[in-house]
């Protein structure tokens, strides 16, 4: 008996010791992982600097032939091929591994630019993003993650607002979004509603069905969940969009809704929730007329943004104004799909976290912040064509989400809702007047044409008599 007792005591202390050692090892491992992440981030930085250097050299040399440019081409080719070998060599089960082909939500990490010299740029971007992520992973995300884990039942509060602005960790996002959506659509939601809309769609074909079909394969071709032929996502997306066209017949289907629904699907996975997310955005956050036949409200918002830019970034706006750059063609897309085409997925979803809670102001804040973030680069560009081309991809070069967030929610203050409302009302009035005037002009034009040209047929308004004559 005594012997057993001694043995037991001995074993207990053994267990105690082993646990201690195990804990120590775990701590060491954690420290090493952090160090490793840091070094990897450094490595990415260096690699991206090297690539940027190569790119600049390539630009400087231009088309001049010679040994130098030959060597340079080889180096670039090599650099572009790194990834493949690198990925296989580094197969450790680190959560922040090497730059993988797809991010957590299935988007390609290296954007596929068609122009050869932009491929280098794309690689640089991917490396930058990766290094930012590695660094943020330990320092910023861990405390946030811990806070989210202890958060039980969600309730609107000032703290929640801040937490949402900082971005919801991946594993909590579906739950949090479901809550945010329920908060918005509670009064619209009825049990069985989605199923009823679906069967309505089966009974009779919606006029928008064909357009939806055409857009299905053209939704996020850079995301594997939508391009993989065996994926269930395109089918889910079709059903969500069809149900929505019945839910809201005045809108039916507007291009762009496919992207909104697709993002919802990527996060929530389940189609009924994605449908309600779409309803929440279109019917409770955006003003009426945002996706309607005239898109009046979204056009108004472009003018409002223009005014806000003039106020917040006068130097940049003077620069763009001199070159007659019209930003509305670029920003229109940002507003319509809430940056779904523009920002890399981790930043995009962080924006959406706040957007679903706070509403449209978040879009204005980030639109302003994006210009601020890239202000210096834009000021360096002189040619309007160059500027337009830059504007087309510059949102994807943003990889420091903390910095962007800080600009959006601090540097852009003050930002009163009252000002936004006033600007909207004023621009709406003006735009409506303009559209009326245009309609009138068109009508007058039709009349004169009709009076002049005998060959003019109805519904063929702008027949040009000069051209119509054989």
């Amino acid at each position, binding site marked *: 008996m005594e012997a057993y007792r001694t043995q037991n005591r001995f074993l207990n202390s053994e267990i105690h010791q082993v646990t201690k050692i195990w804990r120590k090892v775990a701590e060491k491992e954690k420290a090493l992982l952090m160090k490793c992440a840091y070094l990897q981030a450094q490595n990415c930085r260096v690699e991206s600097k090297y690539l940027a250097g190569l790119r600049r050299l390539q630009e400087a040399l231009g088309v001049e032939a010679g040994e130098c440019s030959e060597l340079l081409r080889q180096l670039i080719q090599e650099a572009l091929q790194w990834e493949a070998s690198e990925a296989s060599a580094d197969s450790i089960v680190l959560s922040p591994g090497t730059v993988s082909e797809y991010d957590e939500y299935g988007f390609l990490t290296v954007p596929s630019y068609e122009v050869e010299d932009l491929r280098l740029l794309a690689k640089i971007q991917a490396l930058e993003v990766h290094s930012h992520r590695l660094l943020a992973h330990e320092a910023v995300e861990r405390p946030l993650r811990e806070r989210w884990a202890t958060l039980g039942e969600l309730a609107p509060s000032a703290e929640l607002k801040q937490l949402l602005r900082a971005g919801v960790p991946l594993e909590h996002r579906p739950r949090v979004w479901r809550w945010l959506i329920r908060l918005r659509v509670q009064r619209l939601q009825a049990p069985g509603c989605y199923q009823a809309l679906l069967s309505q769609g089966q009974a009779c074909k919606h006029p928008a069905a064909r357009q939806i079909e055409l857009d299905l394969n053209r939704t996020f071709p850079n995301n594997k969940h939508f391009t993989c032929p065996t994926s269930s996502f395109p089918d889910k997306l079709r059903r969500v969009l069809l149900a929505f066209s019945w839910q809201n017949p005045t809108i039916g289907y*507007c*291009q762009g809704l496919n992207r909104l629904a697709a993002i919802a699907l990527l996060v929530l996975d389940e189609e009924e929730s994605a449908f309600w997310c779409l309803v929440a955005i279109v019917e409770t956050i955006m003003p009426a007329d945002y996706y309607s036949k005239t898109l009046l409200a979204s*056009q108004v918002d472009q003018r409002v943004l223009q005014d806000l830019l003039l106020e917040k970034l006068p130097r940049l706006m003077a620069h763009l104004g001199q070159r007659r750059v019209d930003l509305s063609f670029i920003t229109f897309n940002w507003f319509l799909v809430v940056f779904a085409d523009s920002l890399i997925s981790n930043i995009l979803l962080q924006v959406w976290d706040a957007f679903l809670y706070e509403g449209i102001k978040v879009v204005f804040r980030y639109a302003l912040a994006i210009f601020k973030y890239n202000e210096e680069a834009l000021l360096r560009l002189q040619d309007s064509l160059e500027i337009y081309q830059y504007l087309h991809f510059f949102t994807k070069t943003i990889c420091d989400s903390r910095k962007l967030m800080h600009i959006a929610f601090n540097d852009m203050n003050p930002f009163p809702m009252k000002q936004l409302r006033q600007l909207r009302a004023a621009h709406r009035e003006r735009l409506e007047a303009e559209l009326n005037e245009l309609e009138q002009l068109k009508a007058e034009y039709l009349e004169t044409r009709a009076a002049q040209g005998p060959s003019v047929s109805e519904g063929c308004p702008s027949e040009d008599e000069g051209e119509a004559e054989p």
Partner: protein
Amino acid sequence: MNPRKKVDLKLIIIGALGVGKTSLLHQYVHKTFYEDYQTTLGASILSKIIILDDTTLKLQIWDTGGQERFRSMVSTFYKGSDGCVLAFDVTDLESFEALETWRGDVLAKTIPMEQSYPMVVLGNKIDLADRQVPQEVAQGWCKEKDIPYFEVSAKNDINVVQAFEMLASRALSRLSGRVQSLLNSNVSLYFLSVLTRRGGYSLGGSAGAGS
């Protein structure tokens, strides 16, 4: 003429949803074709430099979204453009019927008195089997309107270059014509300077001496 002439041209491509506007543009500019591009929302721009006769042309081509409700938004582009590609899909009758409206929009919103605003019509997707718009019908419509018609395939790169170059050359001759007529008539040089600045038309050498 001046061999060093350089001209910037702003062209637009319009037409119904899903007819392949973006594909046509990418085939022309980058010589690439993908089955599915992301739907275009708002507008994007591509550029290409070509040499036509003795002129270097810097083409700025604007790609636009094709859904009906984007038309009022897209129409802001027409102002100041030098030419336009009207695209439809030969396997989609509706897209052909929509040409009338698109054309009406352009003519009404550019310069109403303009008689010779350059356009070309492109019937795309001739590589597909289920054709709905017979060539003769499309040809007939274009002849009536005096617009050059091209049967094209962005996928197989058929006639794409020819169509764009036809538009570019028409846009160029219209622009030169306008500058020439301004030079000939006694309209004040102010207008010329406005025009040259706007269109980026550089006369090069002696012709610019007006300023």
